[in-house]
């Protein structure tokens, strides 16, 4: 365990700005990776974690250059090595697993061929041995029937399977060090839990050292022995993973852990104010000074050094770590959400089904959609005024599809969407009158795409105001300023372009635009999943505040059960476009629950090394909902038999008003789940 395989010494990497200033991305990084250990590098986007991981394999991104320091591997500095020598190390000694395996695999080559290629390059095996080795590797990453997988093309595999293939390719050269750059970020919760479990197994089995880069403390907690926390290009905290997660002695990590919503706690986590300083804007003093709750006068002018504390085996960059040490048990305080629930029903979705099937000529002429197994079917939800209802499920569960239909962007095949108990909303956008459109507004996942890059913030927010209320001139300006104030942005943001804003600021502008229409219902499509954790908490708090002020109803789509737990009053769980469970959120998160909800809840990763995910079902991906019977029959671990395959399960209602759609009687459902 003591043998050091990678030594990073005083590494600084940066670029030259147009004005000729040297701007640092990594500032004086020193760390060691020991043999057989898994190190997690965690930080917000822009903290330099990926740059550090790439430097560990001797790669510096185009446009950046090494300003000082070295990355020593086998006592030679990778950053000074010639490309030819690096080729011998990369793949054989140090391998990399990219974030998006779907893009890293060549689309027109078969899986087996691609692994064979890696073996040819990185091992000395003969042809016959290689064939054997391919099966072995595919077996090792637990892909079912390696022989058939090897003959498939990347697009024939699911995201999780692709990521497993990437792991197999990286293992082809039996590397000493494995670098993983956000390897599970794009995957579904259940798949993510399975991949992490596989990585844990491989680390133990092969004794490979791993460097795991992620923004997700939950994932890091599951795999790493040691954690490095980065903030604006510096290491701020480094130490054993358990200590860091349980007793963080740096205010940034402390705040970060507090801002992550937890399954066990309803209510909104506290947010960290501000955002990470942009590279090049660092003044004197601690880089975390602006956002720190523990800062003192000296932090402003003196920057703290990384200090090694022997008793904790931890390095920390903070003057005040001692005061944090005494009471740093993360006591999460949450802002309880106020429910301003009224009895009035605002939106009634009944019997809605949506189909993506292509219409044939006859159907086109008759203007109908004929599809007996539509993507989304039998959706019945009543939404009360002032409620936050969350639609939860993995990708492909139809949650965004339902949202689009409510907004009128997608025609329904059947069913009725009724607003305010009286008006039926036409399924086609063109048939809705302006007021129908005004009452429902959307907030999108990725603010980079939802804001026109050529418009200023003022122009963006002005659009709904002009369209729905015909505001002009001074009155328009006054309204925009008020809205900006509501989302806590200053007036000077009006003349900015989206590219000049941070992710959180952009999402605030999108929120302001939605509220500009004075809507009754706001549809939030994964609104926080593109944001950093500390920013996510702030946006959630803002949404909650605005809801309390305006009495708006939210329909909240998310794959993140912890976020849903934090903000929603009621939860609807979807699988393959069919409802599995609907109920008040406190009951959905308690047993008895639908077997699929159980799988989802089990797979949630908490930033706590003691809470391991429970892997209940296989992470198979089904492409189409089954023709008949229960939608979850393909993956259910508690399937009863033919009844599940042939008959659509009935709704069962628990004492607390939670509806579960399953053939298994509630009492029996509960029995196994309590264990």
């Amino acid at each position, binding site marked *: 365990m003591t043998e050091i395989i990678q030594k990073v010494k005083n590494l600084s990497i940066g670029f030259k700005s147009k004005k000729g200033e040297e701007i640092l991305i990594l500032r004086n990084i020193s760390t060691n990776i020991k043999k057989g250990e898994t190190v997690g590098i965690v930080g917000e986007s822009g903290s330099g974690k990926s740059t550090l991981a790439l430097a560990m394999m001797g790669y510096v991104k185009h446009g950046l250059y090494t300003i000082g320091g070295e990355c020593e591997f086998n006592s030679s500095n990778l950053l000074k090595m010639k490309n030819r020598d690096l080729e011998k190390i990369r793949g054989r000694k140090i391998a990399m697993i990219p974030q998006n395996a779907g893009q890293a695999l060549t689309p027109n080559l078969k899986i087996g061929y691609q692994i064979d290629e890696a073996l040819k390059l990185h091992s000395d095996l003969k042809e016959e041995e290689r064939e054997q080795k391919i099966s072995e590797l595919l077996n090792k990453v637990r892909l079912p029937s390696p022989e058939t997988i090897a003959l498939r093309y990347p697009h024939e595999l699911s995201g999780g399977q692709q990521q497993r293939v990437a792991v197999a390719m990286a293992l082809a050269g039996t590397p000493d060090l494995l670098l993983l750059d956000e390897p599970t970020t794009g995957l579904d919760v259940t798949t993510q839990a399975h991949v992490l479990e596989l990585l844990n197994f491989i680390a133990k089995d092969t004794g490979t050292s791993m460097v795991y880069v992620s923004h997700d403390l939950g994932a890091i907690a599951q795999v790493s022995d040691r954690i490095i926390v980065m903030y604006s290009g510096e290491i701020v905290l480094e130490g054993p993973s358990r200590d860091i997660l349980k007793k963080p002695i740096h205010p940034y990590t402390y705040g970060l852990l507090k801002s992550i919503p937890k399954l066990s706690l309803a209510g909104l986590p506290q947010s960290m104010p501000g955002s990470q300083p942009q590279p090049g804007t660092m003044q004197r003093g601690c880089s975390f000074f602006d956002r720190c709750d523990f800062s003192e006068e000296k932090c402003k002018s003196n920057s703290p050094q990384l200090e090694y504390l022997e008793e904790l085996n931890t390095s920390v960059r903070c003057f005040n770590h001692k005061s944090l040490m005494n009471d740093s048990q993360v006591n999460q305080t949450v802002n309880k959400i106020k429910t301003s629930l009224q009895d009035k029903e605002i939106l009634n979705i009944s019997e809605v089904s949506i189909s993506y099937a292509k219409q044939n000529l006859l159907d086109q002429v008759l203007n109908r959609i004929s599809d007996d197994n539509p993507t989304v079917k039998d959706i019945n939800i009543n939404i009360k005024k002032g409620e936050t209802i969350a639609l939860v499920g993995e990708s492909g569960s139809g949650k965004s599809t339902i949202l689009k239909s409510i*907004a009128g*962007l997608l025609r329904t095949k059947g069913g009725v969407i009724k607003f305010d108990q009286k008006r039926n909303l036409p399924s086609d956008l063109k048939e809705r009158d302006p007021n129908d459109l*005004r009452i429902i*507004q*959307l907030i999108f996942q990725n603010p980079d795409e939802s804001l026109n890059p050529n418009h200023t913030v003022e122009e963006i927010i002005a659009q709904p105001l002009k369209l729905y209320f015909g505001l002009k001139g001074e009155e328009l300006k006054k309204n925009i300023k008020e809205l900006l104030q509501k989302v806590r942005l200053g007036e000077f943001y009006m003349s900015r372009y989206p590219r*000049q804003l941070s992710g959180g600021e952009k999402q605030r502008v999108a929120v302001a635009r939605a509220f500009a*229409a004075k809507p009754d219902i706001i549809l939030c499509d994964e609104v926080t999943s593109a944001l950093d954790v500390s920013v996510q908490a702030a946006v959630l708090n803002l949404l909650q505040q605005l809801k309390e002020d305006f009495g708006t109803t939210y329909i909240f789509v998310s794959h993140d059960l912890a976020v849903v737990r934090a903000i929603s009053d009621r939860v609807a769980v979807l699988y393959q476009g069919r409802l599995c469970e609907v109920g008040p959120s406190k009951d959905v998160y308690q047993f008895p629950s639908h077997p699929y909800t159980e799988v989802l809840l089990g797979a949630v990763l908490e930033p706590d090394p003691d809470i391991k995910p429970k892997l209940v079902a296989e992470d198979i991906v089904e492409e189409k909902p089954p023709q008949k019977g229960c939608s979850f029959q393909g993956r259910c671990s508690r399937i009863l038999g033919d009844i599940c395959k042939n008959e659509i399960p009935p709704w069962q209602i628990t004492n607390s008003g939670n509806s579960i759609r399953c053939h298994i009687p509630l009492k029996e459902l509960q029995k196994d789940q309590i264990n």
Partner: protein
Amino acid sequence: MKLDNIYQEEKKSNFTKVSEIIITMASRPSGFIGLSILIFHVILAFISPYIAPYDFKAINPTLMLQAPSAEYWFGTDDLGRDVFTRTILGGRTALTITFFGSLIALLWGGLLGIFCGLVGGKTDDIVMRIVDAFLSIPWILAMLLIVSLLGTSTEVLIPALGFFYGKGIVRVARAATHDVIAKDFIVSARARGHSNFSIIWYEIIPNVRDAILVEGAMRWSWMLLGFSSLSFLGFGVSPPTPDWGLMISNARGLMSFAYWSVIAPIVGLSSLIIGINLTADAFAKALGIDRSTKAPV
């Protein structure tokens, strides 16, 4: 807050934006050369009637095919007319007609392309098949037909050239629109219930404008070559108006013993085309568009 951030820039007026783009263009050697040539030609087109040393249509049989001299800088042609005078005047018609021709091409091609990209579906299918059909007709034959039916007046040439060079822009504009159409800000505008016109004008055009402008600039240089070819064939400018295409056509038989009468218009024409091409490239680079990735249609 952090107002003095290096990433911050305030909203600029259109004038500063344009002048910044021109400065960026001129800061590259190729852009500088292109811009200089283009500006030189444009200025020349404006002032040439006032600085021309001789009358461009004065025929003098005694001065036939004189070699360049201090008196006749570029020599004289087979009718004894001053080649220098005719060369500096020869770009005016071509430049004017093709400039307005490209504007028309840009306008109809760009708007139709954006419209097709936005509405999609059957309308898009039908329009694009018609455009494809037109693309397959050799434009020069079609032009010859139009010109012989309607004559060679400017009122015929500008819309005809504009039409034939706009077909390619339809495809570029449509492709550029497809890039933005899937973005959430368009979805958002649709969900709000904006009209198609407002979506095109307000959401799409600002995002595809640059790509279409660059394409239009390239079309201009191709149109110039096309227009000169028409003149060369005798269907463009009618004599005795000086025009490079026409001059090359008249003098090409005399190339072996009176090279000056053909070299001057060739240099004039090719330098203008190169100038426009270099400018368009520099323009694209200044806007951050990589033309090398787009196939010229």
